[in-house]
């Protein structure tokens, strides 16, 4: 942007210099008719004016494009599931119609994390589970509140590798809503999910045999909002 402005200024200066330098030359040559000088001046001025207009238009277009790029990129990402963006939530119909792809077993590893200021003990009940795409699976996490006061937690999750995230559909889990644990209480938290059968068709997923599902719990304080983008709902 700055570069463009400086180029514009450069052009302006060049043209201004040309006019100021050439005009004494034109004026000095007395055998040239004065009308010609005036016409030549206006023609040059017109050229300068139109070039200036083009430059300004280019600058405005660049600024406009950079503002428009944000929603455009978002739409592009959603349409093509680029960079781990998961698609829109699927209807129940697709769940009831999907067929298990028996010849492609996948190992789902479970990971549990807690924010450093959070005092819960949070761990998965199983280190891994073998599923096949198209089959719903149930997994458990356990959370324990060892403190003497109620703690409210809220969690988010992550799927690695990123490209597999678009095929990982959760039917029900315990994330994104505040969960309260009473003092010295232990609770089992299930996750009910499935891997989309289209996983089998994706050439990028050919060598992917393991997927890691990682949950992280944070303490929910007043006014805390997890950054779930609104367009992803």
């Amino acid at each position: 942007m700055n570069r463009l402005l400086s180029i514009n200024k450069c052009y302006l200066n060049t043209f201004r210099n040309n006019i100021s330098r050439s005009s004494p030359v034109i004026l000095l040559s007395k055998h040239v008719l004065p009308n010609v000088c005036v016409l030549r001046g206006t023609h040059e001025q017109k050229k300068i004016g139109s070039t200036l207009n083009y430059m300004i238009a280019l600058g405005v277009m660049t600024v406009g494009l950079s503002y428009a790029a944000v929603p455009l990129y978002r739409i592009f990402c959603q349409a093509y599931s680029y960079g781990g963006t998961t698609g829109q939530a699927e209807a129940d119909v697709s769940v009831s119609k999907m067929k298990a792809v028996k010849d492609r077993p996948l190992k789902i590893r479970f990971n549990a994390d807690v924010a450093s200021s959070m005092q819960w003990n949070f761990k998965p009940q199983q280190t891994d589970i073998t599923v096949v795409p198209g089959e719903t699976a149930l997994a458990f996490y356990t959370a324990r509140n060892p403190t003497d006061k109620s703690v409210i937690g809220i969690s988010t999750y992550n799927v690695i590798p990123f490209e597999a995230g678009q095929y990982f559909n959760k039917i029900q889990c315990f994330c994104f809503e505040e969960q309260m644990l009473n003092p010295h209480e232990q609770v089992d938290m299930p996750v009910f999910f499935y891997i989309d059968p289209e996983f089998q068709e994706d050439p990028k997923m050919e060598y992917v045999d393991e997927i890691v599902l990682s949950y992280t719990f944070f303490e929910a304080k007043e006014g805390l909002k997890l950054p779930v983008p609104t367009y992803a709902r």
Partner: protein
Amino acid sequence: MSTAMTFGQKQFIPTPPEKGSFPLDHDGICKKSMVKYMNCIFSNNSNNSMCRNEAKDYLACRMEHNLMAKEDWTKLGFKEGEL
């Protein structure tokens, strides 16, 4: 996670679950079903396909005690024929 330095790297964007969040089972009502399911998983070498019955039992327990919205089994991926 999404700082300025991660520009250009692929970002993971989490999505909310389809049917929302499970209410917490504070009283441990369905703990027995859960333990059965975990035992099945351990004995079958963590293979989910063998433990679909136990998973169904656990979800049935949840539905019975109002810890989960009642749904058709087909909508949860449990087909009529095989179970």
